[in-house]
Structure formats: C-alpha cells, structure tokens
C-alpha cells in the first residue's frame, strides 16, 4: 500500500486488505523498495494535489521505479482511481483518464459489471457479475485511440464496465482495465469503500482483495 503525499484513501484500502485477511504494509512514496512485499495497491486520492495531470507527478516518486519493475515481473498491482491514473501515466496501462464529461466531481454508488474474472484481482468474481461500489472522481473519463480500445476488448482486458448509464463519458463504458498478463489492474471505482455495510453501500468490493490473496497463497 503506497502512500504518496496527497493520497487519501490509503487508510481505507489498508483496512480493506486487513478485512480480506492479508497483512497490509504501508509504503511511503519516498522509500525505494521493500523486498518482502508481494502485491501493491496504489490508493485513490489526489497525489501531489493532482496538479498538472492526475498521477503525472506521483509517477516520478522513488517508489514507482521499483513498482514498475515488479509489475513487469508479474507482481500483482492494483491502481484505484488516482492509482489507475498513476499506472496510465507510468505506461503500465494504455490510454489515459481525462476530466469527466460533466466537468464535475462525481460521488455516487455506481453499478459495474465484472468483464474479466481472470485477473489476479478479480478471480473471486464470476464473469458478468454485477456490483455496486462507490465512484468518486473528477478525472474518471477513460480515453484511448480506437486501435487500443479494440485491442483491449479483443484480448479481454476490459476488467469492469459501468452499468445503468455512463457516469463520466468513459469510452465504451470502461471502468477498469488490465495489462496483457493480468497482474496489473486499474480501476476507477473504489472497491475499498464497499467492504463494510456500515460505512459503504455493501461488501461487493471485498473480492478484489481476497482474490489477490488467494492468488498469492496459491502461488506460494
């Protein structure tokens, strides 16, 4: 769990990881690398105030180099919201996230469909499973050129899609994608805020964290 200056949902994500039964390790963005880390979550928030472009500055923090290397070697990496933006800026994922069509920050409980239950982070879902998890961002509109989009669709790399109306203008209703190997996933909505019914819409988000746990235990 990496905390950049300006990360906001890091505590919440730590909590979600714990609820899923794993041992979360907080990482400070300035730290180079922690050898015993098995998976990385880049949390939501406004790293460096989201100035310039969301994630554009966080991408250059020391921790990112080693995370990029790890990801290339197959380590599971989940970027949530701002974390998704960082992964795109770091070119671990294709495309980019721009301002919502509505021009406004949007906070709402969003219906999404899991399109690929084959990734390290979605294995505990069924293909086509429908969830409700909070969405909250101002730059959540996913864009990429047609070729890239077709490639993503063709290779099943669209991980999640918005249902009941596209909240932010994302092309092809894309809410989340993954890299070719499926270990790196970027997601706009916040599963960590759907892990405890008392403070969120439900528990639909928990499997993201249990999935990776099983993947790691299985691998070990």
């Amino acid at each position, binding site marked *: 769990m990496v905390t950049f200056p300006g990360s906001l949902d890091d505590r919440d994500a730590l909590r979600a990881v714990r609820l899923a039964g794993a041992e979360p390790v907080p990482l400070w963005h300035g730290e180079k690398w922690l050898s015993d880390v098995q998976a990385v979550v880049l949390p939501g928030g406004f790293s*460096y*105030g989201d*100035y*310039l472009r969301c994630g554009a*500055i966080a991408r*250059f*923090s020391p921790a990112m180099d080693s995370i990029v290397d790890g990801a290339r070697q197959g380590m599971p990496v989940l970027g949530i919201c701002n974390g998704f933006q960082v992964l795109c800026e770091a070119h671990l994922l294709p495309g980019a996230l721009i301002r919502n069509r509505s021009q406004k920050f949007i906070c709402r409980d969003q219906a999404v469909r899991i399109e690929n239950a084959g990734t390290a982070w979605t294995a505990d879902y069924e293909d086509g499973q429908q969830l409700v998890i909070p969405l909250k961002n101002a730059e959540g509109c996913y864009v990429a050129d047609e070729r890239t989009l077709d490639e993503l669709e063709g290779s099943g790399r669209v991980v999640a899609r918005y249902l009941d109306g596209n909240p932010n203008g994302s092309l092809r209703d894309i809410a989340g994608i993954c890299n070719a190997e499926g270990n790196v996933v970027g997601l706009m909505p916040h599963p960590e805020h759907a892990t405890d019914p008392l403070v969120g819409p439900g528990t639909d988000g928990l499997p993201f964290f249990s999935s990776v746990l099983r993947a790691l235990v299985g691998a070990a």
Partner: protein
Amino acid sequence: MARVVVDVVMKPEILDPQGQAILNALGRLGIEGVSSVRQGKHFELEVADDVEDADLTKIADTLLANPVIEDFTIRR
C-alpha cells in the same frame, strides 16, 4: 474562419500551486536550470472573420478568465 488563441495566466502576485508542484517535480527528475514555472490555460477558438476584437475581449474576461485573479492575452 480564423484561429484565435487566448492564453490565461494567474496574476504574478497570485499563488500558483500547480506551477510550484511542477518545479519541485523537475527537481526530482534531475533537470537543472529551470528557475520558475507558471501554469495557465490555453484556448484555441475557431471564429468567423466578422467577430470583432471587442467580442473576443468580452469572451476572454467574462468566460475564459476571472480578471480578479487572472490576466489574459489574445492572439488573432
């Protein structure tokens, strides 16, 4: 049809957090020799030739900039 460019920048005495953040990032990128960065907005408008400069000024200071904190330049 002509292209008009309007650049909007914060008045010099006004805080520009974004420029500041970029300057610090340049430091981390190991790039020397940049002593200040200010970020503003850049607009490209396609306007009919019969649109007066006065209209453009009106557009700029009612819509594109808030004269209280920003200055703008118009290039036709």
